[in-house]
């Protein structure tokens, strides 16, 4: 009997336990679901890709196409920062996982990928973009889906989005200090402005011209050339005719190589500083292409040079070289890109949450004492308070820092009187 009853029972029992399991799975799932938000409640109320121990962020740069050469440094810096943050225990106890997308040097692709990172992947922050064009393309996406972009490049200003933190300098920070310095220390009176023909050089030169004229000095020429232009002989002849004290050059990308080589070939020895060549567009990355011997003696105004002598920077340069090799150079934008994840981490921890709105609210006032450039603080207008340095290019491709602004310079993306 017993055997028999057991015999009867077992399939029923099996079925029951199977049923119980079937019931248990959704119950467990429901529990898991209930417990996860309970744990992550404050840290993530808007459904971002945050779990108990991970948080997803996006990296959106061009790793193919013409901009890849410039943007690779930023990708490397962002990955390094994320790796270091994870080694320190992550953000709010969560390890950062990054999803990398390729903007392919193509603005519509940037917009598509930005949307994917926000809508599909629900990333808590995106570090990316380089050119103004790519930023303009993704801006509506970030504003519509309420994402947060950390944008590393020095740029023309005239923008202030609640969904972007600008970790590079805007134009007035870079320009005004530099012109004041060259006027005061080099006695410059006549300026010749030139640049590549798009919004950043044009806006920058507009600010430069207004400032020069304010100081009672003169601009003897202003010229623009299309992106990728390689024939600068005519402008070099004009420079020789007008005899300016300073050639203020905002040439970008590959054109730089032609411009500086031709300048040298035309007999303008930059080390003699007559005329003095002053740029805001050539970082150590560009010098790699130009060749140190072709630009030796030119001055640049930026917030960061690889040769900055401070402990933060030494640690940063060492870590960068340890990860990417000894020959690598680090330019201004690369350093600014490195700040992105750190600034985001600080804001998240201050807010106690990954929610975009809370991170935004927490961002102004965030300071970073460990920045390779020294110290930065986020302004209410989402740009950084930072110092401006002036470097003199050396033949080995590095800059020698000859000047550093005494105070942090306030970012002012909509400068009154300069528009």
């Amino acid at each position, binding site marked *: 009997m017993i055997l028999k009853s057991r015999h009867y029972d077992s399939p029923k029992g099996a079925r029951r336990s199977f049923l119980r399991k079937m019931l248990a799975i959704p119950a467990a799932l429901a529990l898991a679901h209930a417990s996860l938000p309970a744990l992550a409640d404050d840290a993530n109320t808007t459904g971002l890709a945050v779990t108990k121990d991970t948080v997803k962020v996006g990296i959106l740069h061009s*790793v*193919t196409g013409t901009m890849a050469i410039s943007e690779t440094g930023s990708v490397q810096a962002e990955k390094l920062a994320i790796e270091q943050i994870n080694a320190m225990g992550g953000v709010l106890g969560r390890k950062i996982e990054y999803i*990398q*997308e*390729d903007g*392919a040097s*193509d*603005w*519509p*692709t940037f*917009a*598509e*990928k930005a*949307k*994917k990172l926000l*809508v*599909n992947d629900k990333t808590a922050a995106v570090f990316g973009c380089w*050119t*103004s*064009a790519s930023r*303009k*393309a993704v*801006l*509506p996406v970030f504003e*519509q889906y309420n994402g947060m972009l950390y944008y590393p490049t020095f740029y*023309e200003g*005239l923008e202030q989005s609640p969904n972007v933190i600008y970790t590079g300098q805007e134009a007035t920070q870079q320009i005004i200090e530099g012109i004041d310095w060259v006027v005061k220390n080099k006695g410059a009176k006549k300026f010749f402005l030139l640049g590549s*023909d*798009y*919004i950043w050089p*044009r*806006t920058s030169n*507009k600010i430069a011209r207004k400032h020069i004229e304010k100081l009672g000095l003169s601009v003897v020429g202003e010229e623009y050339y*299309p*992106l990728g232009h390689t024939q600068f002989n005519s402008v070099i002849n004009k420079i020789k005719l007008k005899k300016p004290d300073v050639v203020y050059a905002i040439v970008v990308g590959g054109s730089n190589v032609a411009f500086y080589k031709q300048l040298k070939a035309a007999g303008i020895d930059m080390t003699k500083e007559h005329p003095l060549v002053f740029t805001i567009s050539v970082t150590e990355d560009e010098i790699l292409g130009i060749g140190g011997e072709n630009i030796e003696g030119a001055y640049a105004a930026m917030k960061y040079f690889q040769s900055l002598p401070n402990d933060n920077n030494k640690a940063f340069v060492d870590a960068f070289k340890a990860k990417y090799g000894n020959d690598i150079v680090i330019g201004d934008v690369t350093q600014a890109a490195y700040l992105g994840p750190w600034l985001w981490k600080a804001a998240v921890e201050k807010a106690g949450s990954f929610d975009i709105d809370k991170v935004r609210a927490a961002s102004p006032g965030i300071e970073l004492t460990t920045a390779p450039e020294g110290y930065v603080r986020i302004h209410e207008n989402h740009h950084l308070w930072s110092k401006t340095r002036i470097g003199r290019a050396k033949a080995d491709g590095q800059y020698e820092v000859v000047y550093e602004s005494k105070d942090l310079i306030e970012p002012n993306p*909509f400068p009154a009187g300069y*528009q």
Partner: protein
Amino acid sequence: MNSMISNLFSRYQLTHMLILALLLVVVLPLSMDIFRLNLVGKYLTYSFVAIGLVLCWGYGGILSLGQGVFFGLGGYCMAMFLKLEASTPEATAIQSTPGIPDFMDWNQLTELPWFWQPFHSFGFTLLAIIAVPAIFALIVAVAMFKRRVGGVYFAIITQAVAAILTILIIGQQGFTGGVNGITDLRTLHGWDIRTDSAKYVLYFVCVALLFGCLFAAKYVINSKLGRLLVAMREREDRVRFSGYDVSAFKIFIFCLAAVFSAIGGAMFTLQVGFMSPSFVGIVPSIEMVIFCAVGGRLSVLGAVYGALLVNFAKTTFSESFPELWLFAMGALFIGVVMAFPNGLAGVWSSQVEPRIKALFNKPGRTTPAATNSTSAPAATPAESFNPEEPSHARG
């Protein structure tokens, strides 16, 4: 009406159209979220260009490497209308001159240039989307074809046109937005085009227009004009000696392809929310030829599938291998063009379709003699002339 359709399109062509319609209207919208569907909508805008290229290159033998020009013109017309609507004095109060598009303000313009003024009107804009590229194509085509410029020379000239227009747009940034393009477009007559529901609507509008273009293209191919195009492609002199004005047909088909591209461009702007010179240049123009080549340059439906497939691959590869995806794309292009010179459509008609036909025909083979003997003579003249097979390779 019904008989007209059945005269124009064989049952097979209609079935194929129906399958595509089912895919685009039912399957994809049901199986994808709006983000992916919006991407499909974007891919479809390229297929407008590819359809134009099938007519112009596949049938007419006129290889244009500058279709991006027309895509761009259509897109810019639409973008300017939307930009003007977005640039109300209230929304642009921060500018030195409120009420004009932001990029004009950045370039120290203080008023809207006269040629952009009419783009305040939606009716004018719609007209311009068709008329501007058509007139531009007409000028290029008349200048070339009346002088009997063709083949490689014509392709080179279209490339030059693409390069010139790109330089013009980038150089005149105060009027065009330069490299940045025209960005941050928001509403169409107060209707927010950025919302999910608007994206659904725009997707279906795009599909509807696509079918409009598909039918128009099929109509051209199946008409006498289509035959003439193929004849011109094969032996232009013979057509000319037969008393036809060859250049007139070439001009017409080139303008038609331009109009298709422009419609695609305008739909692109609406769905993606901006327009930039990166669609006007040589590289995107050649890419569009590749869509057409992968799909099969002798099949308008193939062109649609080609554009979809290539762009799907592009998105998928680049999401999975952000640093290596270009190689995968290159391999795909080379593979398809080497292995299947007639593209996907060629594979379908030579490999897949005969098998399907065989499958369906088997049960009906019991009384083949009667049906075949009556239909065969009528079918012979049409069948012996097969436009799907170019008689010789073209350089």
